[in-house]
């Protein structure tokens, strides 16, 4: 198991390295000159050149990349124009917001985590639960209701569901405050009440896929021989379904969940925009709009880290669920 973990972590590191190189190259391949966006229209060529020098853009690409990576690992000195000493993990300086990119990320990342993690727990419980129930009650009204629910969820868009939820719960019934972000550690009740609509909207849309997937998987597993064996042993239904069938049916759900959660942590643009909450997704979009290259690069890298980590986690979960995986 330890060897398995090491192998997975090694390949994850390689992937991240490749992503960072690609992102870095993209940074320079973009048709936008970072320098001209820093000093505004009244820039004479000499000043342009000075800024370019300050930014280290005249250094060879490799040493620029090395400097950037060194900044992430140990921190570095960016020079007085960019706020001086930049502590690890240093992601550069944004001239648009006039702050260190790492400070921006430190502010918006908890927001996205607070939206995605509770929503993911909700959608997994809801989706897998619905899928299980409709598989076990196949052909009954309960099954049809669950299928209808998931079909509705799969057909709707988040901005529509979000708008309806806002209208009903915030503006008409006045049960909830206007969505906003408060730190969990500061005021848990306010944290939850400010984000609960985002969780519900995301969970409704995502659980639809999970309900359908786990229903199909469960139905397939229920016809497996080992489920019949479990029943032939005289096990009670909850044990047969919970311990024997569910464990085998859940593997594909784990894969999809890993990809979904990893992707969502990279930014939930539409959710954040619909509910007016500034998270990683909106920050990334804002950065693209304003040509804020260091911030773009940082958000892309962070999204990549989440996807890669989610995949490692999926691999580990797979190995924990299915002993045959550990051999490979």
């Amino acid at each position, binding site marked *: 198991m330890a060897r398995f973990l090491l192998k997975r972590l090694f390949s994850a590191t390689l992937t991240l390295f490749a992503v960072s190189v690609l992102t870095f190259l993209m940074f320079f391949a973009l048709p936008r000159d970072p320098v001209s966006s820093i000093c505004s229209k009244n820039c004479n060529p000499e000043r342009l050149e000075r800024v370019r020098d300050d930014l280290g853009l005249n250094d060879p690409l490799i040493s620029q990349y090395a400097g950037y990576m060194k900044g992430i690992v140990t921190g570095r000195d960016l020079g007085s124009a960019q706020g001086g000493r930049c502590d690890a993990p240093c992601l550069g300086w944004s001239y648009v917001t006039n702050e260190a990119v790492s400070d921006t990320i430190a502010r918006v990342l908890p927001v996205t985590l607070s939206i995605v993690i509770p929503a993911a727990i909700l959608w997994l419980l809801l989706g897998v639960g619905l899928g299980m129930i409709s598989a076990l009650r196949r*052909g009954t009204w309960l099954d049809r209701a669950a299928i209808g629910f998931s079909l509705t969820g799969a057909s709707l868009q988040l901005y529509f569901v979000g708008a309806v939820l806002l209208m009903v719960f915030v503006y008409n019934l006045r049960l909830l405050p206007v969505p906003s972000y408060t730190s969990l550690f500061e005021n848990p009740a306010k944290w939850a009440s400010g984000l609960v609509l985002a969780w519900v909207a995301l969970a409704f849309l995502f659980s639809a896929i999970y309900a359908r997937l786990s229903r199909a998987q469960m139905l397939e597993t229920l016809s*497996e*021989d*080992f489920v*019949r*064996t*479990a*029943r*032939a*042993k*005289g*096990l*009670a239904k909850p*044990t047969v379904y919970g311990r*024997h069938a569910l*464990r*085998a049916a859940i593997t594909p759900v784990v894969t999809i969940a890993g990809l979904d959660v990893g992707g969502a942590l990279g930014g939930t643009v539409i959710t954040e925009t619909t509910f007016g909450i500034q998270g990683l997704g909106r920050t990334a979009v804002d950065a693209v709009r304003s040509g804020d290259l260091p911030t773009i690069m940082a958000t892309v890298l962070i999204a990549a880290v989440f996807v890669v980590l989610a995949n490692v986690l999926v691999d580990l979960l797979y190995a924990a*669920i*299915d*002993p*045959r995986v550990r051999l490979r």
Partner: protein
Amino acid sequence: MDSSQAVPSGAPDDRPAVPAQRSDQDAYLRVRDLRVRFDTSDGVVRAVDGVSFAVERGRTLGIVGESGSGKSVTSLAILGLHDPRRTTITGEISVEGQQLVGLPDEEVRRLRGRNMAMIFQDPLSALHPYYTVGRQIAEAYRVHHPKANRREARQRAVDMLDRVGIPQPARRFDQYPHEFSGGMRQRAMIAMSLVNDPALLIADEPTTALDVTVQAQILDLLADLQAEFHSAIILITHDLGVVGQVADDVLVMYGGRAVERGSVEQVLRSPQHPYTWGLLSSVPSLHGDADADLLPIPGNPPSLINLPSGCAFHPRCRYADRVGSRSRSEVPELRPAGVDGDAGADGHLVACHLSVEERTAFYTEDVASVGVAR
């Protein structure tokens, strides 16, 4: 019981004539006029259509037939493993004198694995791939011994693994099914089914998925265990060779009905039903002439939704014309075959319109002269 009568005195008059086997009343398992129907979108499947038999402790009944003959459905019905929403089961299944048909599932569940257990065809798919073999055996023990703790259950499972001939049972306990060979897996499956000392063991094609060399070992093991535990065994197979090796009695099924029943000597020495002849002549013999022709049964097993009228076997029977339109209009009853001297007392039964003389003549001329039984 008056042995010469087709209808034994114990059977109700409104039931079809189904003669009882010897010592029927003491049998551990008694099945009478079992009917299993499935409702499907294509129509009603009559998977089992009025089958009766009994198995005593210490004896082995072989149920033989092609796929779709209803033999596996019969065994699953005994264990109560069908989906009650889509299955209708009527008739009588009594285990230790207790009628199971119509019993609440919770009560049947308590008998499953404790009084009656099952071994399946493919041990790889029948064992859960994600749990260790030992854990699955211990689980079967603990569900019927709620007071047993983890350690006792483990010890019991290790003992069972040892008993079925698995070397290093304590180490094997912690291994997964994929780490076992096919034969070892089936041994583990047998250990799991016997962990609660069930009096009735149903083995559904237990050797079909195994190497030929392993098949004999598994059959020997089953015979050993039967001698030790004095259990009643139902062996479901399509292989009459296997039946000849281990069974005491044979039930031949076709299209959900019993077409022939008797002791293994009766059925294999003087088979009475043309379908049984076909099954016998489809098996190459090791002892007979290697050049002997095989006589495969023409055609395919019938659809259970739309069974041929009359004798279900008539479209594939070479002798159907001999009885005129009766083969198509009348379902033959299972009645004493009338061979081997004292008819009926020997319990050799056949469901065929042909007379004893015709059957004897056809068998001698057409089958015994070419096939394996010579």
